[in-house]
């Protein structure tokens, strides 16, 4: 009896203990489940965090870039203002004298200013602008108008002493304006005697301008053209000079390319040779820009102005054109203007400035003068008419430079587009092998999946321990049935837990790789689509080169030298 009672009491106690152990275990397993799900969450959070960080970095870089450009832009704007002020402060008086020159001429035209006023103002200028050639020239003009021969000659000599070239040209233009052709031709001859095609002064462009636009009698143009022809023969005798110009044209072409538009965001991100790609596209797009440039030059022959207006324009060009001492400041103004024009990109501005820099050289050879006038007539001190003539005379080497530029840019077109999406590397020529690429990408991810699954190990250890526990427990089933039961329970739970965990990880990996594969496939297809667009755009832009070449090759100097004011009037 007693035995029975004890065994009954023991059993219920053990049973309840067993139950509580069972509930503990399930509690533990629940907690493990919670922890593992928390860990999953943490991993997900980490991925999100990483991608956020990458986004932030790229945004920050963009911001820094934009900020730098913005600051450079602001600085350039301020500097332009300051430099202009400095110019005004230092050479502002010159501007006044220049305005006065035109003013005197126009006043004399209508005859409303009295001689005394002219004498007084010009003599005052003489005192106020020491060293400036235009001051004595104005005095000479005023004394000539009032028939004061002695004073005229003195002032004339003084102005020639201060700046022979400009004074000579000034008198030449005045004589032409007053219709004294013989006198102006004499001045022109004197002017030519000073010229040396290897070493021309900057203002020579002004005289070229004057003769080209036909403001001088035909004899002047003959004199000019025969000189120009001799100079050209001399300078193109060997390739030295021509090659210098060619190099400048090539770098001018290179610098004329438009800024990138950001049309291919995927390629920009995933293509490892993107810098080459974008450079090739930029070079190809340059052709269109150049076409507009040359068309603008060639089509702008303007005969609408009267001779007198044009003379005044040239006169004001002559007098307004910066004098040599102003050049350093003007150069800085130009650099800052270019920075503004290039949206704050200092390097782009410097590249443009570099191709223009010869404009600021004080003495140039004739070919260089033509190049300067072609690049930027305003800076070179000429008008569009001279630009047209300069381009047409330089045409043979412009074509050569253009051929070199075209060949160089074509030579740089990348043969293949190298893509790297995640760790999948591939290359395509024109995007035509899409299916092939997609297939190899799929293979890549199959492989990745296999490798990643291989990395997690099947929980053999836990299963063996669990099984051993079960087996061991079973062997005690007779001696201690309750302990055996507990052992089997614990062993079973260990096996079940480890299997559950293993399957969970496996599923997560498969899902992860699938997701990556899906995204990467989208990116790959996007890249291929952009590749097709890129090749198409490149081909279209590149084809413009042939058109532009035809256009430049068709420019002939004779077309423009004959199309001067006189002949145009004759035709009308």
């Amino acid at each position, binding site marked *: 009896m007693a035995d029975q009672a004890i065994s009954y009491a023991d059993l219920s106690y053990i049973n309840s203990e067993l139950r509580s152990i069972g509930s503990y275990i399930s509690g533990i397993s629940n907690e493990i489940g919670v922890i593992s799900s928390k860990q999953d969450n943490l991993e997900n959070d980490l991925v999100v965090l990483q991608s956020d960080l990458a986004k932030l970095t790229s945004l920050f870089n963009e911001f820094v870039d934009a900020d730098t450009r913005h600051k450079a832009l602001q600085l350039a704007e301020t500097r332009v203002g300051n430099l202009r002020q400095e110019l005004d402060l230092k050479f502002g008086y010159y501007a006044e004298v220049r305005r006065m020159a035109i003013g005197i001429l126009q006043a004399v035209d209508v005859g409303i200013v009295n001689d005394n006023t002219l004498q007084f103002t010009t003599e005052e200028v003489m005192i106020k602008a020491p060293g400036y050639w235009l001051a004595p020239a104005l005095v000479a003009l005023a004394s000539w108008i009032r028939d004061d021969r002695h004073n005229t000659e003195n002032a004339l000599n003084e102005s020639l002493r201060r700046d022979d070239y400009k004074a000579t040209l000034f008198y030449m233009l005045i004589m032409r304006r007053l219709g004294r052709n013989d006198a102006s031709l004499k001045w022109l001859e004197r002017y030519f*005697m000073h010229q*040396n*095609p*290897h*070493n021309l002064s900057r203002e020579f462009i002004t005289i070229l301008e004057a003769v080209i636009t036909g403001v001088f009698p035909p004899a002047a143009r003959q004199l000019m053209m025969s000189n120009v022809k001799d100079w050209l023969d*001399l300078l*193109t*005798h*060997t*390739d*030295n000079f*021509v*090659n*210098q110009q*060619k*190099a400048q044209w090539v770098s001018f072409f290179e610098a004329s390319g438009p800024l990138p538009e950001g049309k291919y965001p995927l390629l920009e991100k995933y293509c490892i040779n993107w810098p080459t790609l974008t450079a090739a596209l930029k070079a190809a797009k340059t052709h269109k820009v150049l076409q507009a440039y040359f068309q603008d030059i060639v089509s702008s022959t303007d005969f609408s102005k009267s001779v007198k207006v044009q003379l005044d324009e040239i006169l004001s060009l002559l007098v307004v054109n910066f004098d040599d001492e102003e050049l350093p400041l003007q150069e800085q103004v130009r650099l800052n203007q270019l920075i503004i024009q290039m949206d704050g990109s200092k390097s782009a501005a410097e590249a443009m400035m570099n191709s223009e820099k010869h404009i600021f050289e004080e003495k140039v050879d004739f070919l260089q003068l033509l190049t300067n006038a072609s690049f930027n007539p305003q800076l070179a001190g000429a008008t569009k008419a001279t630009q047209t003539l300069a381009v047409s005379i330089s045409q043979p*080497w412009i*074509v*050569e430079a253009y*051929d*070199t530029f075209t*060949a*160089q840019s*074509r*030579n740089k*077109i990348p*043969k293949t587009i190298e893509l790297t999406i995640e760790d999948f590397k591939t290359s395509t020529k024109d995007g035509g092998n899409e299916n092939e690429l997609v297939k190899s990408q799929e293979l890549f991810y199959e492989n990745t999946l296999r490798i990643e699954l291989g990395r997690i190990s099947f929980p053999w250890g836990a299963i063996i321990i669990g099984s051993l526990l079960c087996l061991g427990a079973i062997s005690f089933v007779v001696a201690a049935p309750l302990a055996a039961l507990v052992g089997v329970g614990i062993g079973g739970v260990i096996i079940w837990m480890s299997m559950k965990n293993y399957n969970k990880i496996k599923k997560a990996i498969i899902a992860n790789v699938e997701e990556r594969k899906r995204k990467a496939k989208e990116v790959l297809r996007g890249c291929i689509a952009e590749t097709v667009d890129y090749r198409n755009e490149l081909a279209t832009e*590149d*084809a413009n*080169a*042939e058109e532009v*070449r035809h256009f430049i090759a068709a420019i002939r100097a004779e077309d423009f030298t004959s199309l001067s004011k006189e002949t145009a009037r004759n035709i009308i």
Partner: protein
Amino acid sequence: MARIILQNENFDFDASKKQTTSTGFLSDRGLLKKRSQKYLDLIASLDQKTLSETKGIEELMKGLQEEFGTAELASLPIGIVAKCFLGDPYEVHRLDLTAQIIRHYKINESMEPDFEKARTLALHNAYALVEVYKEKLILIRLDGTASKTDIGTPTNF
């Protein structure tokens, strides 16, 4: 005009010094004349020729000398590179005038450095062929017009 004469002397001195190395602007004029259709056809026909056809080579050389108007090998290009229409895997072919051989190249097969620099341009559709000279390339367009480029030479102009 005295200054011009003075400058002129310097100038001539410079020119004579450079004469041996420079590729003259005027001296190249002859090279830049329009090529004849016959010449273009001749080069285009290279695809049909087998690689070791001696008689073909002789004919070819004769045709070239006719085109360049000279029998001197020195004034001829060192070779000609053009697109190969034999089809995949052949990409370009090269006519080596010094060794007088024709060779077709596969896509990933590289040519001698002198010729390799002409490859990309030869493959470009705008050009029918590229004449390779020691210091320059002459690009011949489909209509026979020629243009010079200094690619591949360390040019400072």
